[in-house]
């Protein structure tokens, strides 16, 4: 079966001459949770902006459900792929929170009653139901990030792109974003997240794609990507494995990128030894 998103030998050069992507090949099957990581300026945001047609490849092509995105109207792509920007202020413009969230669904032709349901569900998911009538700019940065996320959730797109969703969030905010990723996956949606938060990446995604200087240098499960043999490659793109992955290696129980995996591995060893 063809993957939902296919990136074929894609390169991209910005108008100022910056080479942002070089020969990228990537296949993303429907319903997967994929994290894209890598140092600042490695091409992560540039790559995902190709998925919803904000950018078009300089060379190569992007296939969405087998169709080359070059021939697909942006309005159609918007109904398939939702993108929550890294900077919420690039996205927010309405005078009230609920109007902001309703804008997207309304513009992709959702019926009014469905728009209202979608807005309510999205605000509930991000914890902003109490702020429905607030001016978005009366919210702090962390809540504006959650609002931008709600605006994308309300569109109910099959593919959801989250660019640095945990930035500026406190512990509860991060937990909320983690639940949103897991709920989206439970309903069969494809979730693609960009993040520098390796704990979030290891706990919430089943596959991790690592970029450096516009190229993909690692691609695997969190246990594979954060295993000892990948550490040099990770360091070359300014990443480091989460703490439990390092402790796991040091304790001799292998690649354990989350607290839960490390606790489980050490518990099993303890049981086996007793």
């Amino acid at each position, binding site marked *: 079966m063809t993957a939902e998103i296919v990136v074929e030998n894609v390169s991209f050069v910005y108008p100022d001459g910056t080479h942002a992507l070089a020969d990228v090949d990537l296949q993303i099957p429907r319903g997967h949770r994929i994290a894209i990581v890598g*140092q*600042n300026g490695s091409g992560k945001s540039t790559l995902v902006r190709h998925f919803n047609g904000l950018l078009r490849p300089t060379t190569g092509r992007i296939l969405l459900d087998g169709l080359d995105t070059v021939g697909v109207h942006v309005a159609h792509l918007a109904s398939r792929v939702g993108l929550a920007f890294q900077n919420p*202020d690039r996205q927010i413009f309405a005078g009230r929170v609920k109007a902001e969230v309703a804008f997207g669904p309304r513009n992709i032709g959702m019926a009014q009653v469905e728009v209202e349901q979608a807005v309510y569900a999205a605000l509930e998911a991000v914890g902003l139901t109490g702020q429905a009538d607030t001016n978005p700019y009366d919210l702090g940065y962390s809540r504006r990030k959650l609002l931008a996320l709600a605006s994308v959730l309300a569109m109910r797109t099959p593919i959801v792109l989250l660019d640095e969703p945990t930035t500026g969030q406190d512990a509860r905010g991060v937990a909320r974003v983690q639940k949103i990723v897991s709920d989206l996956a439970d309903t069969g949606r494809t979730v693609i997240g960009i993040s*520098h938060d390796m704990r979030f990446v290891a706990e919430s995604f089943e596959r991790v794609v690592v970029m450096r200087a516009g190229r993909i240098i690692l691609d695997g499960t969190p246990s594979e990507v954060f295993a000892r043999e990948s550490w040099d490659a990770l360091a070359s793109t300014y990443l480091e494995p989460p*703490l*439990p992955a390092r402790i796991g290696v040091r304790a001799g129980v292998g690649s354990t990128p989350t607290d839960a995996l490390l606790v489980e591995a050490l518990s099993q060893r303890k049981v086996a030894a007793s």
Partner: protein
Amino acid sequence: MSASTPAPRLSLRDVSYGYVGTSANVLQGIDLELAEGRIVGVVGPNEAGKSTLCLVAAGLAPLAIGGRLDGTVEQDGVDTRTLSAADLGQRVGILFQNPVTQLSGTSVTVYEEIAFGPRNLGLPLGEVATRVEWAADLVGVRDLLPRDPARLSGGQAQLVALGSVLALRPGTLVLDEPTSQLDPLGTRLVGDALADLAAETGTAILMVEHKTDLLARMADEVVVLVDGKIAKSGPAAEVLADPALPALGVEPPSDIRLRAALAEAGISFDASWGPALGVQAAVGARE
């Protein structure tokens, strides 16, 4: 205060603040002191008033944005309400949470962007150039100097914004999540550069940060802000290890969290796996 003791770089005494057009105060009864060369981290849940504290500490609230300020905010022993914007701007530099808010939007290159502040101080061109290169090296953006500031990635823009503030060489730095968009090693490098700056030049740093691993590595003290009030404050190692942090909406450092998870499963932490607080720093240094 005796004549031989210098005034703290920044001092807030019983400070409350409310925005224009609102009746409730966002900050209430804040007491905080920042001495020369010290780094104080501020943590707390969303909407606790952390960014407002930055605006008040830097003197921008109420000077630039209005609002009601009660209590006293002093820079180098001088009440900020008596300082002009120009004078204030040379004593304290602020980095906003969103780097796009910080960039001037008028510069064609990153070099010009970082030079914008020093030029506006009326410094000779040679001094401006020295400061731009110094600041660019400090935050590791020398290779970005010819680039268009509008075409940077989020993390690169954040580094350039920080470099622009550092180039002003203020005695006090107020940083609102300075590493939020940086990659993990970039975060550590910026943290180390700021710690070196504080140690070598006596720059005092007030820094809002959700990354408690970073604060464990570089902060002298940590303040927990909840609902506009200081809920806890003290030496960084002590506050960050406080078991009450999660209930206050603050993520403990990785090693504290991991130890708690291991303890819950009845597994003792083996000393050979790493030292106590700051295990990340130690592991990183060795690998």
